[in-house]
């Protein structure tokens, strides 16, 4: 991975590089550098396979972190390209012309996180959830338990058999030291 780092450092302004394993490394870039970096990795370095495009919700920093995971089949190594987006009105340029499969991942991110990818084919269509009228569910400010309790009626009489709770009540009936 050192050679990869050297190649990239000379061409792009990288915000960070972590070599996690000999065959896995993560690169942090800014938004403007993403497309040239992806093109370079795909065409020159041999990372031809887009494995996945996923997002992480850093709600404390009010940012989304996108990760593009690329795979080099010839040398069996992976590199993950990360970038940060502001959480308000998140949107990003689409890479569906580099890899057509990115269109599906971008649809999923639009529905589940609310990150828009203008220009991606069919990105406005419902992906899995039909008739969803609430917050995008993967965001951390969406409380799924509260939503489930508000929308769906319970059947009364459900009890929990959590072993930890049961043992705690049995062994320390008055609360105990850890209670």
């Amino acid at each position, binding site marked *: 991975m050192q050679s990869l780092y050297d190649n990239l450092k000379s061409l792009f302004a990288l915000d960070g590089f972590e070599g996690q394993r000999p065959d896995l490394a993560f690169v942090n870039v800014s938004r403007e550098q993403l497309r040239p970096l992806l093109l370079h990795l795909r065409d020159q370095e041999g990372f031809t396979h887009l494995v996945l495009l996923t997002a992480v919700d850093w709600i404390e920093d009010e940012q989304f972190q996108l990760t593009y995971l690329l795979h080099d089949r010839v040398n069996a190594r992976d590199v993950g390209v990360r970038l940060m987006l502001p959480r308000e009105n998140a949107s990003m340029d689409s890479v569906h012309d580099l890899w057509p499969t990115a269109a599906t991942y971008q649809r999923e991110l639009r529905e589940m996180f609310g990150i828009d990818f203008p220009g991606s084919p069919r990105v406005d269509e419902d992906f899995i959830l039909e008739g969803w009228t*609430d917050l995008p569910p993967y965001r951390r400010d969406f409380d799924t338990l509260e939503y489930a309790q508000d929308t769906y009626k319970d059947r009364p009489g459900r009890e929990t058999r959590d072993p930890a709770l049961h043992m705690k009540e049995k062994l320390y009936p008055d609360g105990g030291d850890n209670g």
Partner: protein
Amino acid sequence: MKDEFEKRLENQPDERPKRQALRDIPIREELSPRTVRTPDGQEIKIDPLQDYFCQAGPTVQTPAYTKIIEDLFNWARAESLWILGFGTGCGAIEMRPLMTPRFDAYRYGIQWRPTPRQANLLVISGYLSVKTLKRAIRAYEQMQNPKYVVGLGSCTINGGMYWDSYNTIKCLDEYMPVDLYITGCMPRPEALLQGFDDLKKLIRAGKGEGANKYAENFEWYKANQKRVIKDWDMPDYNW
């Protein structure tokens, strides 16, 4: 001693405030009322959901005239259970072994039919997401009276392991009348066969009147269904 279902019916329909909808769902273009131009040049107004579907609701069908004939019919219905081949969830994988030589449900008169018109038993096999609930309701309403519903697994009873999920319903009773629940996560094929045997006893005792219960409490069921299915683009009763 009223059973829990009747207690719930006594309560008002679900008066909990609905959550604020952050967007509204437009009806599909081909289903919206609009003006079209016919091939011979006229302009007509159409409303597909009203024009192309029958708007009547279901009616309660009385059993046969004499008890002995109804007993004969119930015996035949019990011994000839035709399951709709619609695997709604993970329990479908427990229904497949029933067709194989090891468990062989055919010797009990159970067959799988591919179309809801010919089936009289709908097996809700496992968790029911809202998307599948819409299709299951559509399939259930296309079946003919008398029809039965069996809920497989704990997700149909109280939500099971998806009790805090934003997308699965927690109590199948609210949306369609259920005759029998088979517990398990998933119940094994032997448990399914035992469950079908219990269902046969129920039907033969004359208790398999789920379709009439649906027709009597139609507004209540429909209100529950429309509360969770927010993009309702079907007629109210899918004949």
